[in-house]
């Protein structure tokens, strides 16, 4: 219930296009995208990227670990918060505001 509430609050944030919670297998547990193929696509691609970034960070310094990943593109921004077992992915569109 609290999870739902927080999920909806994140979704209701300005500019947010979608939120996905992925588990370590790459299965989306909860997704706000109506299109499931898009969800699957995001899951697969983002998980690979998160895994690769995590490996890169750990290879550079074994004591280090990835805490947050932000991909800024021309049209939107993908924010990934990785954890040991899960992944929270939020896609946000920048809204120009003073």
């Amino acid at each position, binding site marked *: 219930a*609290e*999870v739902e*509430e*927080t*999920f909806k*609050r*994140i979704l209701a*944030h*300005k*500019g*947010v296009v979608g939120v996905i*919670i992925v*588990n*370590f*297998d*790459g*299965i*989306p*547990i*909860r997704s706000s995208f109506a299109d*499931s193929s898009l969800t*699957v696509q995001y*899951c*697969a*691609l983002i*998980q*690979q990227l998160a*895994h690769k970034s*995590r*490996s890169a960070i750990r290879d550079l310094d074994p004591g280090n670990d990835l805490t*947050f990943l*932000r991909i*800024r593109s021309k049209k939107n*921004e993908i*924010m990934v*918060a990785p*954890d*040991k*077992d*899960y992944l*929270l992915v*939020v896609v*946000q569109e*920048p*809204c*120009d*505001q*003073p």
Partner: protein
Amino acid sequence: NPHLKSEQSEFAAAGGPESPRSSPKREAGVGAKKLTVSQVTQTTVVAKETVNYCKETQTMNLEPERDVLTYDESEREGEGVNAAEALAELQRMPHVQELVAAGAAADGAAPVAAEPEKPRELSDEERQQILLSESFVRFFDKTARVMERALAEDVDIFIDYSGGSGDTELGETAKQQVKQQRVFYDDRWSRNRCVTALDWSPHFPELCLAAYNANEDAPQEPDGVVCVWNVKFRKDSPEFVFHCQSPVTSACFAKFHRNLIVGGTYSGQVVLWDNRTPRRTPVQRSPLSSTAHTQPVLSVCVLGSENAHNLVSASSDGRLCTWSLDMLSQPQETLDLQRQNRPVPATCLDFAPSDANHFVVGSEDYSMYTGCRHGAKAGIMDALDGHQGPVSAVATHRATGPVDLGHIVLSASFDWTVRLWSLRDLGTVHVFEETSDYVMDLCWSPVNPALFCAADALGRLDFWQLNLDTEQAAARAQCDAAVNRCRFSDSGLLLGAGDHLGRLTVFELADSLASPRQEEWKLLGRTLHELKQATAELAAAEQDPPGVGPIR
């Protein structure tokens, strides 16, 4: 993620033998030997499956097959669940199809492509299970907080012309003495609730807590709510939300424990919240017995030093209890404040800044009392009369500096005045009569010895600078609703004001107002002296002493 890593490495390892395996198959000769090698790898995969059995409950059946698939597609019809693998397969689809056509060995592209769909449809109940599992809740709690901060912050950095400055509002405060920085309001937790307590965290200067009363419109929601807000980030939701069954009437951060929040409730219970645990209800509660409090707890504070500290709580029947933070099952000491053998109907309590022994308490019977907790005459020592209405707030001088001003006390009352007292001669030093409604709360600035703020029921916040002008407020700010509580942050630059509609407004003070000048202390001493003389003359002229005790 150890699973992915090991799988992928094994896949890479299996990818080696795989290609030479397929070509020898075509050559039809060496294949058999390679098959035995692959069987060896299969057994290692099986061992790995048992590990997965321990962890998963429902997806057990799928996973081993997936693992088998990645290494040896010839053995079974693979159901590839691993998204990374699936994608890799998808990308290599034409090649895999060739392999399928060539021999029955490597299959898996088409079934793999189909398979990623199946587990996702299957796991609807699993999804619910996962969503309710504790590890997920913990992950989501932390991550959602971070994500919300990240969401609220962005947009600014890529605008070329603004130069990437985050806070553009600071430049404007120079023009105005007091500027409203932001309003904290949560639709679910602070709607229709009056702010009853405010405190700033001594450990993290950007955190402040607000305690709320009950929401009459929503009886099924918990009556007492405490929200911890973060001033540093732009996100609008509280960092932490705690609740309890009885309306919270006072709250404070535990000074020597960075994770604990103490609250006093309407029912007389003293409760303790811990922000390390994910639960929102108190971790410790004091009992509802006659040895503790039975009336609303109007003040809680942690006194003492790091190694020897106590929690002191006061309730409106004049009872002062001392607790140890480890054990709230019974108070260590109880002190009943009485005057002329009748309990003091206390409304507010404040301790002298460096003294855990002496305190000042304001009461509903229009007077203020000084008292001490220990000693031969523990209890009420002296009375300060003068107000013509119940005293709503008392504040002992907070700023520390070259001159000891611990004897200066301010009191606010429902008689529309704020009085400045000196405890040395137990008399009024000055009466501030600017306000035009009940004065609800006041607070000294912790850095500027001459600055204090008074909040009244019209929502007006008056900032008085004693060295500049004692007849008029130096700055004024307005809130939309009646302000119930106001508190300076520890830096002295921010002021939080909570009103009766559940809104917490944070005001930013201009540096010229908030920071003390070099000679502030000396000037204050002189100002106080002048005020005292003026009051004395006034008293002599009216022949009606405003305060009890010798003034001269």
